[in-house]
């Protein structure tokens, strides 16, 4: 078993009468990307900020790199990098100066230019922070968190507010972090982000864990039924079996995941035999989003 970098047991946090985190347990292993997925207000940031040492839990325990984060020990902070959900940088320093300033707080550092390169800000090296776009500032956040060469990185919703291409770039940055051996604790409310980046995911809703596992098999997603959808010309005959007709006129078949291959074979064989064209043929597995909406259903639309 790999070393457990984070260990959380029955963690709870109340603000007055409101219980934001209601007893959650999980662990993060060295070298993995661990994602905490959930809607706004689910308790993600509260949990993250307990692990970062900003909040003291009301109950349960949390251990980060063998330390109790609530003690805010310098020796722990020297080994972790934090990208907060919303945070500022002095607007009048340049990209390189900001990174150097923060790097100076840590005993071990990565070279400034290497860090700038990892986040793709080389062209902006000597630009002042107030001249950067929102996405560039977010990448600088990541660069600053990396500057002290931490073993463990917290990324709290690192791509919220990004346009799609900036999000892709940010994902590449995180992939680069994994390549250089970091452990990453990520929170997000984007399913595709968790799917693309995470080795393991927990889904949290209303302060409780509602599912956990690798994104591909989360909540039995790999066991769920596959959906085959196609259109037929008006004159064509109907295939046998349980076929539904949808409002837009297309047809749909649901099959067990294990039967998908055979079902597709049967359907296409049937079409070939009759010389029928299956228009707009689609074979879809339930997306992580389907699973997520199902799991957090009560909370969606808050």
């Amino acid at each position, binding site marked *: 078993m790999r070393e457990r970098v984070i260990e959380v047991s029955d963690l709870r946090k109340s603000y007055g009468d409101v219980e934001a985190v209601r007893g959650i347990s999980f662990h993060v292993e060295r070298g993995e990307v661990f994602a905490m997925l959930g809607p706004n207000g689910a308790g993600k940031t509260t949990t993250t900020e307990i692990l970062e040492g900003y909040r003291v839990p009301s109950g349960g325990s949390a251990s980060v790199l063998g330390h109790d984060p609530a003690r805010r020990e310098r020796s722990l902070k020297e080994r972790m990098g*934090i990208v907060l959900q919303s*945070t500022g940088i002095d607007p009048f*320093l340049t990209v390189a100066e900001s990174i150097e300033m923060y790097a100076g707080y840590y005993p071990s550092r990565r070279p400034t230019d290497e860090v700038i390169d990892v986040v793709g800000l080389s062209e902006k090296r000597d630009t002042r922070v107030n001249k950067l776009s929102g996405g560039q500032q977010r990448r600088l956040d990541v660069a600053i968190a990396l500057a002290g060469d931490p073993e463990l990185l917290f990324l709290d919703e690192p791509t919220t507010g990004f346009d799609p291409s900036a999000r892709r770039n940010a994902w590449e940055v995180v992939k680069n972090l994994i390549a250089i051996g970091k452990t990453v604790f990520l929170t997000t409310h984007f399913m595709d982000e968790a799917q693309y980046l995470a080795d393991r995911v927990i889904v949290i809703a209303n302060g409780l864990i509602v599912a956990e596992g690798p994104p591909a098999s989360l909540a039995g997603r790999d066991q769920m039924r596959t959906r085959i959808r196609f259109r037929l010309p008006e004159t064509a005959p109907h295939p046998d079996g349980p076929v539904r007709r949808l409002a837009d006129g297309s047809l749909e078949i649901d099959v067990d995941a294990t039967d998908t291959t055979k079902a597709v074979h049967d359907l296409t064989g049937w079409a070939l035999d009759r010389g029928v064209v299956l228009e707009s043929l689609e074979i879809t597995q339930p997306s992580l989003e389907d699973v997520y909406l199902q799991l957090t259903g009560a909370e969606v639309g808050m």
Partner: protein
Amino acid sequence: MNDVALTARQVRYTNTAFWRNPQAAFFTFAFPLMFLVIFTALLGKGTVTLDSGLEFNQSTYYVASMSAFAIITACYTNLAISVTFQRDAGILKRTRGTPLPGYDYLAARVTHAILIALILVAICSAFGAIFYGADIPTGVALMQTVAVVLIGAGSFAALGLAITALIPNAEAAPAEVNATILPLLFISGVFIPVENAPKWVDVVGKIFPVRHLVEAYLGAYYGQPLFDFSWRDVGVVALWGVAGIVFAARRFSWEPRR
């Protein structure tokens, strides 16, 4: 790095950022000078009769009182508002998540405020010497003046950090900071000499550090026979400073309250 090296390094970054905001820097320095010119033009033609019966030019009085004002502006008003803005911007929270000890960060902010106060006082003194014939002290008086500036600046910076604990967010900062300091500036002889003021002004003013800073500065800067320099005034200012440090240490907040 030890605390002193970390603090010194942080002062350098604070200073770099300070001078890169030229408008803020310009008005930090222009403000006390502007007041010096305005008050002297409006009220500085005459003389003040001191308790001792001696007469004193109001223009030279203002050179000293505006130096005290400059110390308070740089260390109390500006520091409190700037720290509150940094807190709202999340800069303090970010710093809190790094290994830099919080007191090193705050020590750097205080040190930088004291440096700005020193420059401000130097400008006021030079201006006063050139335009109002207010001689710059030498020898012991100069040492005493420097001591008053350093202790005064440090104490008001500590109070500036302390007040941020009572300010919920940056929008509230200018109003709260001014509400706490402006009345004191008026009843403590900074803008208007209080030699002939009603009794209550005298009594209330002497509770707070502003009046003592002004008197310590006048005493150190001009000295005998016009003014007595008393370490007691410096001591009262320092006590307020210590109270500010104690309060800030217990209550300083790294995140805004909303």
